[in-house]
């Protein structure tokens, strides 16, 4: 048996082979197909009707309402109604309506396990890779192919290992790691291959931080972003109602001598990073942008508003007030994260600091709602700052970690959270 990477092993299992090599085109059976109110029912229903076809296995399908909720106009009401009616008519067993963003809700509800082969109708579907599953984003017509046949073709990727040694300093986080990688390799640096995050600094990360890494592998242009599962994974999944034994995790790692390109990084030397307008690859250290004024601080999205992200922000802002002239908005990634944050006193702490809480949905990350005023300078914990992305054609959006966003809200300009935490 040749040495294989984790990506190769996951694909081999999914296509029923003992081994696969990079470059081969194979057809894989899909264990889970996830879509949301924007990418799912309104697109699939007419196409399925046109084909006279049925969903191959409803138990393997998950629908999440997260883009057009809460409904704000006739169009969003229509889209969400189509989704709810179709879900009822199809008697879909797994529907999560207004519980939060799909990439966070789907693992929370126990749908992702190590070893699975999954697709999602959203480009941040690689988030599932944090659990040692092969998961990537596809468009609606591709999803039609999956839900009617239960299969999808792919070209077996090479693996690019991002090996992080050392330990992150306090106030430095997975988002800073990602920005550093995207800044170095660019938006196409992943070359639609498999990225695997490894090394002691990665294994030291809690699950939510691993999810941030996998999530933004989309911004590296990778097809997937993988983290080999371990005891941290097993414990998190236990909390989500998924019981795994050590042998369930054992196969899912890259062989020591597996072929791949390896890039080495030192987490101990990493300083907070930001991406400048208008690209996630336009990255500089926060220190280089000292005193760039901001008017809006946004903590939201699957990328940057999970419980760990809310804890980070609350640590920075506890006992303080945000600067005059700054708006701080917090849209927790899921209702579960929001409830946990409330129980830990984080919501109180952030509200006392001047934060406004928004619903747990995609919201401003994808330009929904009207949170981002024209002409404003924004620092956001989301994944993309392309021009116009957040709903304002003239806003200047910087991307940063929740620590950085909170510290910037406190100071009124882009700031290093380590100075506040010290």
């Amino acid at each position, binding site marked *: 048996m040749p040495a294989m990477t984790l990506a190769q092993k996951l694909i081999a299992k999914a296509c029923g082979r003992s081994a696969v090599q990079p470059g081969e085109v194979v057809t894989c059976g899909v264990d889970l197909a996830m879509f949301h109110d*924007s990418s799912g029912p309104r697109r699939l229903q007419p196409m399925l009707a046109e084909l006279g076809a049925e969903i191959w296995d409803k138990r393997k399908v998950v629908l999440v309402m997260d883009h057009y909720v809460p409904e704000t106009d006739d169009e969003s009401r229509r889209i969400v109604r189509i989704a709810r009616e179709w879900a009822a008519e199809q008697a879909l067993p797994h529907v999560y309506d207004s519980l939060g963003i799909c990439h966070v809700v789907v693992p929370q509800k126990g749908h992702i396990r190590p070893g699975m082969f999954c697709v999602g109708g*959203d480009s941040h579907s690689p988030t599932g890779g944090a659990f040692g599953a092969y998961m990537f*984003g596809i*468009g609606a017509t591709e999803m039609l192919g999956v839900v009617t046949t239960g299969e999808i073709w792919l070209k077996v990727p090479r693996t690019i290992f991002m090996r992080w040694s050392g330990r992150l300093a306090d106030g430095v986080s997975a988002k800073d790691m990602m920005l550093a990688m995207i800044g170095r390799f660019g938006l196409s640096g992943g070359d639609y291959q498999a990225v695997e995050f490894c090394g002691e600094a990665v294994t030291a990360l809690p699950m939510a931080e691993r999810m941030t890494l996998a999530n933004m592998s989309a911004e590296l*242009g990778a097809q997937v972003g993988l983290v080999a599962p371990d005891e941290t994974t097993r414990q998190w999944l236990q909390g989500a109602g998924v019981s795994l034994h050590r042998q369930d995790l054992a196969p899912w790692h890259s062989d020591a001598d597996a072929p791949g390109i390896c890039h080495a990084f030192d987490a101990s030397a990493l300083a907070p990073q930001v991406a400048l307008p208008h690209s996630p690859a336009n990255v500089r250290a926060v220190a280089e942008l000292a005193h760039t004024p901001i008017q809006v601080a946004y903590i939201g999205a699957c990328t940057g508003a999970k419980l760990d992200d809310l804890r980070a922000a609350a640590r920075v802002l506890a006992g303080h007030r945000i600067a005059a002239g700054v708006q701080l908005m917090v849209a927790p990634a899921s209702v579960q994260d929001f409830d946990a944050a409330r129980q830990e006193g984080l919501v109180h702490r952030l509200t006392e600091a001047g934060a406004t809480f928004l619903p747990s949905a995609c919201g401003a990350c*994808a*330009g929904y709602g009207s949170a981002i005023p024209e002409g404003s300078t924004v620092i956001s914990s989301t994944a993309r700052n392309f021009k116009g992305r957040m709903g304002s054609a003239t806003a200047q959006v910087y991307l940063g970690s929740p620590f950085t966003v909170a510290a910037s809200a406190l100071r009124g300009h882009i700031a290093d959270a380590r100075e506040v935490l010290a």
Partner: protein
Amino acid sequence: MRVWKLPPDVDTDQLAPGSAMKFGLDVIARQCLQGVRPDFASGVQRGDVIVAGAGFGIGSSREQAASVLVHLGVAAVIAPGYSGLYFRNAFNVGLLLLTCPQAGRIDDGEAIAFDARAGTVTRGHSDGHGQGRGEVLPLDPIPGFLLDMVDAGGLLAQLKQRLHPKEMRP
């Protein structure tokens, strides 16, 4: 068949802006590329070609970013490289993507010709300039099954053929 030249890293928010995504392709089409080439949406003719820099289609999985170009009659996109996700979406909706390492040599406004199966682009005449006319640029080979998909009009058309062969007209 004129060329519309675009810079690198044209993302899916440019092709299918978030504010238009709740509407149909006709609305999305009116806002297509307005942040990069404001003259495109109203000026593009059926059969025109987009020549872009590397990284075309990065960003979201929204396939409207590809189907909007089909809707507008764009015959092909020519670029040195694409987002992998966009590449799959494009062929699935019947949009031809040609990978041309030397796409940067083609000028805005040129009248070019291409042969996807032969793997060539032939440069044409652009306003006021004769330079480059007749130059043949090589294209990376495209797997036959993807070309078949575009010829069929996309994956939906192919699935129809597979599931209901008797209903397909000859």
